[in-house]
């Protein structure tokens, strides 16, 4: 009896369903596959990389970066530093409105910066800590004042700290703003179903709407890289981010798909506890710089690249990749030298040091750890992989409960963002516990000037010190890999890994 009614139901479904086929998605909708479900869609509270991709459709920033990492206009058309480098004056683009029709003016900018600085739970407070006050000079001119010169400020405004939300919506929704964000970007928020989709549609009042060619974008999270690609292949998606390196070859061969890649501004490396906690004193790596040097010499970055990232990453030994203008050329990548590594271990009186390597259980980290284990063994190291769930590993890093830790950083456009918080004494991301007064002075000085050459000189000095101490053994800079439908044109890759939706069309 059950089966009969089932068939009847199925038949009814089939009849009804055929009507649905005709209303397929129009070519104007971009279906975008994300690698994760973003967190809260409030620029003040947001924390994840994947959220920034959605924000780039929703929220314009005061300034943006160009593919060569130079700062370029977005909501602000021009800017200048005061003579003492303590005030940044920005001219705003005239006639810009938020999605709710409100005007984007100097008052709105002031509201936003203050919201970032004061809201409870704000993740932007640290980035904007240098800003002491915001002055409204005239309706389209705003001035950010700092107590001391702070060069990285401008680059900070290319990210979430520079995103402008509608003050009216911000005041109305308070800490619930993320449920219905109202910004000044090319697309406005339509709906979000957690873990299923985020839908945005074209904003007709956008200042640059001539370059917006999609009527809608549907962002959908597909956590598994294989599944994400399968959805692109079968046409459920038009565009996917973070393609797995091992699939790049197959995408390249497929003439219906296009592969795009760009070297990241972040890095992959091994952080070593050299002073964060007592573990630094008891561990072989943490207590002896010679053993750290031997460890680095035992590793073959090209080999790691080949095995873990299919040769698609760029080997490196600093917080920026060798092709970055801020790379210190005086500190080149050391070649693998097992004999010298053995020699150093002998000098250190510890020919077979044990290394407990905290490894998040992600595929890349786990592969990297296994390759490191094999390579370091040749020099005499006994690497023990301490597999740890990612959320737990962050806590361990925070407490200094590790000897060595595989950690990636997504990178910031200004090299300071990859450097200061990691190596200056007692900074929040300084997991290694490095505390070197000479380095602190160099790092602080580098922030006081906006002169590129002077900053570059400081970074060269910093690179030498960091390279001698080895709080982080930098290994590689991955590539951001994207794959999209070959019909799609106008996509331009940026080293920050974000996607700019203006100019793309299908």
């Amino acid at each position, binding site marked *: 009896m059950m089966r009969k009614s089932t068939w009847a139901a199925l038949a009814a479904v089939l009849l009804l369903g055929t009507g649905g086929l005709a209303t397929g998605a129009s070519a104007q909708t971009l279906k975008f596959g994300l690698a994760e479900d973003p967190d809260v869609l409030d620029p003040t509270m947001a924390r994840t990389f994947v959220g920034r991709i959605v924000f780039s459709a929703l929220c314009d920033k005061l300034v943006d970066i160009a593919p060569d990492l130079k700062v370029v206009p977005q909501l602000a058309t021009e800017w200048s530093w005061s003579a003492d480098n303590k005030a940044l004056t920005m001219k705003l683009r005239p006639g810009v409105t938020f999605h709710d029709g409100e005007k984007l003016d100097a008052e709105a900018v002031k509201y936003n910066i203050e919201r970032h600085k004061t809201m409870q739970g704000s993740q932007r407070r640290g980035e904007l800590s240098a800003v002491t006050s915001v002055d409204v000079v005239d309706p389209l001119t705003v001035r950010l004042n700092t107590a001391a010169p702070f060069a990285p400020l401008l680059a900070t405004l290319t990210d979430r700290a520079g995103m402008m939300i509608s003050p009216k919506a911000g005041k109305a929704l308070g800490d619930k703003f993320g449920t219905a964000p109202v910004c000044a970007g090319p697309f406005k928020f339509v709906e979000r179903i957690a873990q299923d989709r985020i839908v945005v549609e074209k904003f007709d009042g956008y200042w640059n709407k001539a370059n917006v060619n999609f009527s809608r974008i549907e962002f959908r999270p597909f956590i*598994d*890289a*294989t599944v994400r690609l399968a959805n692109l292949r079968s046409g459920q998606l038009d565009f996917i981010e973070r393609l*797995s390196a*091992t*699939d790049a*070859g*197959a995408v390249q061969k497929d003439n219906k798909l296009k592969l795009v890649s760009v070297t990241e501004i972040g890095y992959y490396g091994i952080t070593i506890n050299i002073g964060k906690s007592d573990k630094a004193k008891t561990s072989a790596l943490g207590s002896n710089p010679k053993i750290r040097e031997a460890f680095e010499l035992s590793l073959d970055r090209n*080999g790691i690249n*080949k*095995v873990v990232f299919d040769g698609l990453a760029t080997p490196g030994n600093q917080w920026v990749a060798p092709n970055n203008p801020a790379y210190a050329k005086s500190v080149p990548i050391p070649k693998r030298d097992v004999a010298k590594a053995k020699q150093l271990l002998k000098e250190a009186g510890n020919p077979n040091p044990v290394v407990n390597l905290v490894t998040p*259980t*992600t*595929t890349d980290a*786990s*592969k990297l*750890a*296994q*390759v490191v*284990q*094999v390579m370091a063994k040749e020099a005499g190291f006994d690497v023990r*992989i301490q*597999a*740890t*769930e990612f959320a*737990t590993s962050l806590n361990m890093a925070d407490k200094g409960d590790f000897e060595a830790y595989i950690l990636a950083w997504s990178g910031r456009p200004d090299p300071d963002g990859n450097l200061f918080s990691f190596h200056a004494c007692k900074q929040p991301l300084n997991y290694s516990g490095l505390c070197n007064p000479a380095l602190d002075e160099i790092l602080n000085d580098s922030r006081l000037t906006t002169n590129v050459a002077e900053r570059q000189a400081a970074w060269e000095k910093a690179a030498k010190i960091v390279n001698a101490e080895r709080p982080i053994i930098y290994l590689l800079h991955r590539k951001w890999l994207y794959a999209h439908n070959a019909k799609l044109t106008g996509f331009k890759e940026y080293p920050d890994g974000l996607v700019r939706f203006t100019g793309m069309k299908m």
Partner: protein
Amino acid sequence: MTAVESVMQPAAATKPAAEESPARRAFRRLLRRKGAVVGLVVVLIFVSFALLADVIAPYSPVEADWSALRGAPTLEHPFGGDELGRDVLSRVIHGAQASLFAGVVSVFLALLIGIPVGLLSGYAGGLVDGLIMRFTDAMLAVPFLILAIAMAAFLGPSLTNAMIAIGIAAAPIFVRLTRAQVQAVKVEDYVEAARAVGNSPLRIAFRHILPNIWPALMVQATLTIASAIIAEASLSFLGLGQQPPEPSWGSMLNTAKDYMTDAPWMAVYPGISIFIVVLSFNLLGDGLRDALDPRHRE
């Protein structure tokens, strides 16, 4: 995942037989079921693989060989090479150790917790029984995999901890089963008699009750080994099972899924191994159930 399936069904014989020993009769009847025999043989073959892995496996399961990186199957490497150039055949053979071990140990742990608690609950009755059963119901109501994930995350990702997590998560089934059996048996004459002559409850439980509920537990244990092997694979898929470089079939599948298109052999062999072993345990368990259940006499 299939936690409650046999709770509903009062399985297996409860009365001692008059002429032939129950174990011998059950074994004779088990041998009559071809599916169960095939299952038993396959399980034994894989167990011997696992025990003799060091002798049988042609290569080391952890030694990387850069020249065989994701190499297609050849005569030297009949199952191909994996992402670090390790021999997939050797890893499948060594993986049998981890996977079978995971199945057997976690069920052993579940029995170790489940039987005493179930005996206590069934024998004591009253408030103790009530509390234990409500707690058991609550454990069963929390999704099995979530329980296992949370515990594996708490204990830290490793094969041992995955086994502990699976064992604890599977224990409630055995508590319930033992209790149901105890309640059925404890009113039987021979138990009443044992009590009348002044045997201690502990002695009664172990000498008189346990031997009679053992068959039902064995059936459930065999079937739970099958689900435990799958559970280990599932935890490994989430990165919480066997950790690299040591292989288990689940962790091999987890890595292999990234290479589905260009190195399918990495995924095929561990997948087939899981299927064959788990199917065999299921056939064996079903056969045992038939053999031990008096209702299935033809």
